[in-house]
Structures are given as C-alpha cells and as structure tokens.
C-alpha cells in the first residue's frame, strides 16, 4: 500500500495551496441537490460488511480515476466508485469510533484504512477544484473530515498517554534513540556552600569557635537517581511512534497539518513540563524567587543546574529524535518549527529563573552558586543552542541573545558581590581585639573564600574581564609590561591588601605592642600558608607577593622579639657589673657591696620580667605549629645563651648570700622549658620553684 503524500504545505502556519476557482457556470446545474441527500450516507444502519475484495476493487477503480484526472480534466459526472469508497470510509470510521475495531491493533486493517483515507483525500482535493457532481464532492469531503477527526482524536489519545512522560517498566521495548547513552547529567563540580560574612560577627559575639569558619563542603547527591526515570523520555513504544507517523502522513496529506501540529505541540509541551517536574524542578514565579530564603534558594539553584543540564543534553535530544521519527515523511520545517517553539519556551523559562535569582539581595556567599549557573549556561546551554543544527534555526538567534543577556546579569552581580566583599573587608571594624592575638575570623573567612573562588578561576577571570569593558580594561590592556595580567589576580590582590590594612587597624586595638606583632604574625602566617597551600591561589598571587608577605612576617617577628625580649636581655647585661666584680678590690668594700646588690637586682628583675612575660604569653595563641616552634626557638636562641652566660658567670657571687634562690630562681634549663610553654593559649601559673 503506498503511503505517498499528495499534498504538503511548507509551513506550520497557514498557507493556502494555489488552486483554481470553481467554475461558476456549473453552479446552476448542481443547485438542485440539497444536503439531506447524503445525510444518511454514512449511517451505521446500512453498514456494509467489510469485504476486502470489494474494497480493493473499488480502490482500483478510484486509482484509475485519479490517474486519468491527473492528465485530463475529470468528467462532470464522477464515477460510482467514488461515493462507494466514501461510504466504505464512513463505515470504517464508524467501526473505529464505536470501538468495534481498534486502530493500531491490526496493522493490515490500519493500512487498508489509511490507504482509503489517502485516496479520499486525493479525490476531495481534485473535486474541490473542479465543477462536478456536488453530491459526490460533499460525500468525499465529509467522509474525509470524519476520518480526520478520528485520526486527530486518536493522535491525542496516544499523546496523552501518561506513560509518555514517565519511565516504563520495560524500557528496552520502548522508543528511545541512542541519546540515552549520550550523556548523563553531570553534577556541578563544586557543591559547597558558604556562610555569609555577617555570620562571622555573630560567632565573634558568641564563643569564637574559629574552626567553624572553614567552609563546609556539603555532599549533595543531587537527584542523580531521578535522572534514570527520564532516560527513556519520551517513552513511546515503537509501534505508537510509527502510528503517529502514519497519522501525520495522512493528516498532513489531507491538508490537516495545523490540526496535527496544534495537538502535537500542546501535548508535548505538557509532557515536557511534567518531565521537568519529575526531575525535581518546580517552576516558581519571579516574586517567589525574590522572596525565597537563601538556604532554600541555594538548593533550588542546584536543582536548576541539574535540570537544565539534563533537559538540554538528554530531553531535547530525545524530543528531537521523536520528532524526526514522527515527521520522517514530512518536510523538515514542520519538526523544526515545533521543536523551536518548545525549546524557546523551555529555555526562556530557565533563563527567567536565573534572572530572578540574580535579583535577590546580593551577598558574598551567593557568588559560587551564581557562577554555577553561569557555567551551566556557558558550557551546556549555549553550545547546545549554537550547535543545535537546523532544528533550532527559528529560535537560535533570539535564544543566543537571551542567554547572553542572562550571563551579563550574572556577571554584573558577580562584580557587585566582589565589591560587596571588598567593602565588607574595608568596613569591618570592631572595637574589641580578638583575645590572645589569634587568627581573626575575618582572615579565615576571606582567605577561605578566595581559595574557594580560585576553584572558579577561569570562569571568574572571564566574568571579570567582561565587566571591565570601560576605562579600566583599556588601562589594564595598555599596560605593556604585564600584558597577561589576570583580572582575578588584580582583584584578589586588592582584597588581600584591604584585608591586610584591616588587620593592621585591628592590631592597633592591642595595648601590648608585642601581642600586636603576634596577632599580625598569626594572621599573616595563616594567609601565606593558605596561599602557598593552594596552587590556584598561589598562581594568582604570585611568588613575589608571597616573598613580600614573608618578609613582612620576618619584620613582625623581629619587632616582637625587640618589644618583648630586649628588656629581658637588658637585665642580663653585665655592663656595670663586670669591672667591679671580676676585679675585686679589697679596699673598696663599698663598691663590692653595691655590685652585689646590683647583681641581685639584675637577677630579680630578670626573674620578674621573665615571669611576667611567661604568664602573659603562655596564654597567647599561635595556632600554626611551625610558627610556634620557630618563635620558641628564636626566643630560646636569644635568651638562653645570654642567661646561661650570665648565670655561669655570676651565680657564684651570690652563692654565699642568704636566700640565694630568691635571686637565682631558674637554671637555664628551666628557662628553656618555660619558653617551650609559651603561646599555647593556656594561661599558666609558674611552676614551683626548684629546691
């Protein structure tokens, strides 16, 4: 049975095929027939038993008629076979409509039916352009209309089958192209969430639980399982796809393309929406997004990313394959237009969501989620639209524009968030210093934030480059000495500088200058270690920066030693003692006495100075172990030799004195041990004096 099409229309939209107008002269000859004449023609009462042979015979006659009318104008009187075939079609449709026969169950019957439909649609096309027997014309067109109604209805029944949007128990028997193996949705590579900057202040107020500020990586196994359920989307069994194909052929050949497309598009849209919902994606209004709590929205954005990926890589492909199969006999423009309309609606909807997110209050912790969306648009949606081939031709330009606009909005808000971070770092000023000179939460937050930002290094670089189309970009690019200056690097450098400035200001809050240096050392060390520990961040900041920061650390260290330990060393200065004690003049007892007294004072003041330092600085915090041992070693190297030599040289002068251990409280080893207890963050009382 041939299924060739006799007419096809080039567009989904209305276009009238050029036909000859009816010859008015013939009007009079046909005016005496009313419409009642045929009214019973399709009546179920006189249903003919379906006899394949007679159908074939009538069909052959009709074919002959069609053949001759293709070359010569048809006769005014149409042959009997035509009303006969119309009658046959009527009874066939009646059987289907009443359920006496099922369409799509018996292929032979279906083919027979469709072949009759094909002939009738050809006949009615011919008769509608020629003056002929109006009764025959009415019969055929009415039969055709009934057949078309039935086919349209059946198409809707197939399309609205709920299984078409969900997985089937036996997916292998179902229609699916090779798209299922193509690509599973990739989860976003980074899935951490960041606390907000204001939370630092809260934590500062409470208990200073510093470690909490390290970013928390949440494992979000996001909806990976549910992707399986969509893997066979759209889940039409092969025979239904082929049925839809046959209906398309019949309806479009008969000029019912619009009816077909309207029904098809409506149902596919609903199925598509359902598929997205099953993937966990709920469409929400702009205002709703705007009002959403960040904790909730954060999760929604992750779902958005997954859904968009899945939709663009899997669902669109499945949809395209379905259309290709259903409209395989049609001009490709039909499926192109249908797909374009669908893709356009879906993608603009996704973009609206992203734009809604961008409109929420911009706070720094949102940056990474925004960048996730940016990456999805850039890496998944944009290429899919650009490489979508002809099937997205109609909406390609518009969508590219829409995506670009959305990306710009994300870029703008990214820049705003960076600005926000800078301002927060600049503006963060409290009146109370953090106890014991420890690493400030702000330092941790900012450095961890930047470390995390470096995971998005390339994206951020691109984003920051885009927003600098004005003066700054020119400035940066004209700088010949650093032709490849990184925008992100510049930005990070600024933030680090601001952080440093802020820390210096904070350090002024300490009354004890030594503690100030410890604070700066702690924070500086933390920053440098973090930068060196993160390859990306290190690259951004550069070796020079690290060297510079390390030299600052040395300076802090030096200043600390000076501020703390020079007064200790002063006590051990033998000047004024040396001459008098070593060269003891028997005549000058007075002098000897004074010297002894001086010696006693020196020991006493050493003891008390050291004890003070010990008491205070053992409670100071140096959390970096290496820095702590460096500091202790450096102190020991400074104090121990001086004390040892002072001790060795002068202790025998006092050995005869009463209460000698009031002056010589510590052996050099004691001092060494005590130095090892500095910076533990635990205020200590002095151990019992050695007996």
């Amino acid at each position, binding site marked *: 049975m041939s299924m060739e099409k006799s007419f096809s229309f080039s567009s989904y939209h209305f276009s009238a095929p*050029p036909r000859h107008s009816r010859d008015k002269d013939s009007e009079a000859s046909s005016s005496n027939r009313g419409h009642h004449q045929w009214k019973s023609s*399709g009546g179920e009462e006189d249903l003919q038993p379906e006899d394949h042979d007679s159908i074939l015979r009538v069909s052959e006659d009709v074919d002959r008629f069609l053949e001759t009318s293709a070359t010569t104008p048809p006769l005014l009187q149409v042959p009997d076979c035509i009303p006969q075939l119309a009658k046959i079609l009527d009874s066939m449709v009646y059987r289907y409509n009443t359920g006496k026969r099922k369409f799509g169950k018996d292929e032979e019957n279906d083919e027979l039916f469709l072949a009759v439909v094909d002939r009738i649609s050809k006949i009615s096309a011919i*008769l509608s352009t020629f003056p002929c027997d109006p009764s025959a014309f009415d019969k055929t067109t009415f039969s055709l209309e009934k057949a078309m*109604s039935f086919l349209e209805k059946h198409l809707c029944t197939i399309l609205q089958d709920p299984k078409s949007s969900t997985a089937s128990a036996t997916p292998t028997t179902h229609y699916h192209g090779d798209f299922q193996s193509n690509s599973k949705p990739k989860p976003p590579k980074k899935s951490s969430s960041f606390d907000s900057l204001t939370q630092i202040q809260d934590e500062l107020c409470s208990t200073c639980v510093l470690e909490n500020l390290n970013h928390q990586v949440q494992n979000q196994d996001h909806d990976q399982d549910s992707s399986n359920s969509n893997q066979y989307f759209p889940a039409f069994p092969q025979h239904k796809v082929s049925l839809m194909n046959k209906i398309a052929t019949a309806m479009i050949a008969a000029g019912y393309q619009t009816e077909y497309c309207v029904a098809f598009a409506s149902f596919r849209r609903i199925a598509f929406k359902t598929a997205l919902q099953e993937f966990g994606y709920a469409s929400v209004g702009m205002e709703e997004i705007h009002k959403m709590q960040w904790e909730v929205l954060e999760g929604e954005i992750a779902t958005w990313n997954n859904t968009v990926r899945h939709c663009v890589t899997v669902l669109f492909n499945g949809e395209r394959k379905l259309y290709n199969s259903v409209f395989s006999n049609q001009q490709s423009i039909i499926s192109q237009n249908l797909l374009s309309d669908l893709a356009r609606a879906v993608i603009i909807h996704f973009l609206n969501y992203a734009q809604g997110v*961008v409109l929420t209050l911009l706070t720094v912790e949102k940056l990474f989620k925004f960048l996730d969306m940016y990456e999805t648009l850039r890496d998944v949606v944009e290429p899919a639209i650009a490489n979508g081939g002809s099937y997205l031709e109609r909406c390609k330009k518009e969508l590219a524009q829409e995506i670009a606009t959305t990306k710009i909005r994300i870029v703008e808000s990214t820049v705003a968030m960076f600005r926000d971070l800078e301002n927060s770092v600049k503006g963060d000023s409290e009146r109370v210093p953090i106890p014991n000179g420890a690493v400030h939460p702000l330092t941790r937050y900012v450095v961890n934030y930047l470390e995390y930002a470096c995971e998005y290094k390339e994206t951020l670089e691109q984003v920051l480059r885009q927003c600098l189309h004005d003066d700054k970009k020119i400035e940066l690019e004209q700088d010949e000495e650093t032709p490849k200056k990184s925008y992100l690097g510049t930005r990070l450098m600024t933030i680090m500088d601001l952080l440093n400035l802020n820390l210096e200001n904070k350090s002024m809050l300490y009354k004890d200058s030594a503690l100030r240096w410890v604070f700066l050392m702690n924070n500086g060390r933390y920053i440098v270690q973090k930068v060196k520990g993160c390859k990306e961040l290190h690259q951004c900041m550069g070796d020079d920066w690290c060297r510079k920061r390390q030299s600052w650390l040395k300076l802090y260290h030096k200043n600390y030693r000076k501020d703390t330990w020079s007064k200790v060393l002063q006590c051990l200065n033998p000047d004024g003692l040396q001459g008098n004690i070593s060269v003891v003049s028997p005549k000058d007892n007075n002098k000897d006495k004074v010297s002894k007294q001086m010696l006693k004072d020196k020991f006493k003041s050493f003891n008390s100075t050291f004890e003070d330092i010990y008491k205070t600085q053992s409670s100071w915090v140096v959390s970096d172990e290496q820095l702590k041992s460096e500091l202790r070693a450096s102190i020991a190297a400074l104090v121990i030799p001086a004390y040892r030599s002072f001790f060795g040289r002068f202790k025998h002068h006092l050995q005869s004195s009463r209460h000698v251990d009031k002056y010589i409280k510590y052996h050099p080893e004691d001092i060494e041990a005590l130095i090892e207890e500095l910076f533990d963050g635990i205020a200590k009382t002095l151990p019992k004096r050695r007996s």
Partner: protein
Amino acid sequence: MSATTDHLMSLRGNQVHSVVEGSSLEIELETFQRQVTLRFLELAAVGNDDLLSLSWIRKLLDFFILCQDEMRLIFFNHRAQVMKPPMDRIVSDFFERCVKALDLCNAVRDGIEQIKQWQRLMEIVLYALDQKNIIGEGQCRRAKKALSDLGNCMVDDKESGAYMALRNRSFGRNTTIKDHYQNLNHNSNYQHRSVGHFRSLSWSVSRNWSAAKQLQAIGNSLCPPKSNDLVATCGLAMPVYTMSSVLLFVMWALVAAIPCQDRRLSLHILIPRQFPWSAPLLSLHERILEDSKKRERKNACGLLREIQGIEKCVRGINELVDTLQFPLTEEKREVVGQRVEDLSHVYEALKDGLDPLERQVREVFHVIVRGRVGT
C-alpha cells in the same frame, strides 16, 4: 559623558560641585516630568477605536521603556545621592514593585502565546473556508469545529468552569452523525481537542496566581512623596513616584488587553490629579475601565482590539455557518467570502503584531531586571 562632567565638577571643589549638581538635577527632573507628560498626552490622544489596539500597546510599552531608561540615567548621574537615605529606601521600594511586574510580564507573554494558539485555530477556519475551493459540508464542519474550539478558548479564565458546558453544546442545532459518534465514543477520555490544554500553557506562574492581586500589590501603598522626602532626596523621589505610577498603569493596561490568569480589572489607581502627567494617565484608565464594562466586553478574555475583532468575526461566521445549506448558493458564497475575508484581516493583523509585542514585553522584563543590577 556624565562621568567626565562629574569628574570635572568634583575637581572644582565640593561647594561648587553641589551647586552645579543641584541645578543640573533640577533640569533633568523637569525634563523627565515633561517627557512623561508629553508621552501620556500622546497616548491619550488615541481614538476609541485604537485604544488598546496592538499598535497602541506597543507605543505604550515603548514609552515605558524610554521613561525607565531616562530615570536610570538620572540615577546614574546622581548615584551618590541615590545611595543615601532616604533615597535608598525609596529606590528599593520601587524595585519591589518592579519585581512584581516581572511576573506580570511573564504572564502576559503566556497570554500572547495563548493568542497565538487562537491564531492556529483561525488558520484552520481560513484554510477550510478558502474561497479558492468549493466549500462543502466537510469543510464547513472542519471550520465549525475550529470555531467552536476558538470560542471555548476565548472564554475568560474566571469562567473556566463554564467551558465544560460550552464544549458539549458545540453543535447545538444540527446534530449529525459525527456528533453522534463523538458522544458514543466513551472509550477515549480525550473529548475535544486542545481546549483544556491551551489553558495549561503557562510555565511562569502557579495555578493560583492572580494577575489582579499582583496588580494590587504593585499599587499597594503607592503615594506621592512627602515634602520632607522630596527635600531630603533633592527631588529624586519624584521620578520614582512617577515611574511607579506609570509601571502600575502599564501593567494594568497589559492585563486589561491580554488574556491572563484572573484579570479582574476593578483596580483603583489612586493618583492625585495635580501632576501634569496624571490627568492623561487617569483619563486613559477611565476610558479602559468604561470599555471593559460595556456589555459585549464584559466577559472578554482580553480587551485588545484585535481580540474583539476575532470575537466579532467568530460570532459572525458561526452564525452564518449554522444557516448554510449545501451546495452553497452564489449569494451565500459571497457572504461567506466576506466573513472569511474579515477574519483574515484580523488574522494578518495578529500575525504582524503579536511577535513584536511579545518581544517588547520581553524587553520590558529585561529593562526592569537591568535597572536593578546597575544600582
């Protein structure tokens, strides 16, 4: 340009700076008010036949976009002032209203999509009753079915319960075998094509969303700036109030014209008449309200002139088709031809006007979103 002037002015020292800025701001604000007024006078000059036509709405949206851009420029030129309280609060209040308008933009785009579906049904009618062909009962049935679908689709949403009833009486007088078949066919739960599905086209708003409530929220506590706010903002509060009112009116007019979920139009726009732009705006509001109360427009799903055109044509053809006897007399043929011709005019107008309108509504959306990120 403005950046350089700012720069120059700041070079001259603070005092000069503020004086110069003050007077330039005054001029900018005056120009803005004048522009808005002129535009609304132009819009109000429309004849009743063109009020809420596609071309008029496009002009309205054009003007909105221009005004919005002009306000942004003023804000940009005086951004330091804009960041300061109480202006920052006033701006963020305006922005809240704008976000609400975004949902309306999307709902209106869905509405336009809906009209495009009607267009397809009109295509079927035009195709079936094409004068180049002989029209028989078959063609007539096909057209009637599309017309009936069209009629059912075009019922305003608030009456969505009624469309079930409508659907069943589709071919009231001439019950034929085909209808009989349809009634007999209980196997299929699909009863009539597309009607139900046209309604669920919306991707943007939830089922219980209401355009009327959204409009109300935009207009909520909208009142002219108090004199102390005007002083404190150097007059910048005024364009914000003006734009809020314009936004409210534009959105209200869109909802009036285009099918939307729950588009009751009873919204009162309370704007004092003292502003030069408010008189034409309010008169437009009144005219549209009056139009909506006309008997034949009461249940319309949109006051867009072209929708009115569709309704008229559909009604005309429907009435005609019911009386047709086949074969057609030459006289009847001509009448049918005339009606179809009318329909094709409406169809062509929609075909040319809907896409640009849709793009413009999208542009309004973008303009609003852009307005926020900049500040």
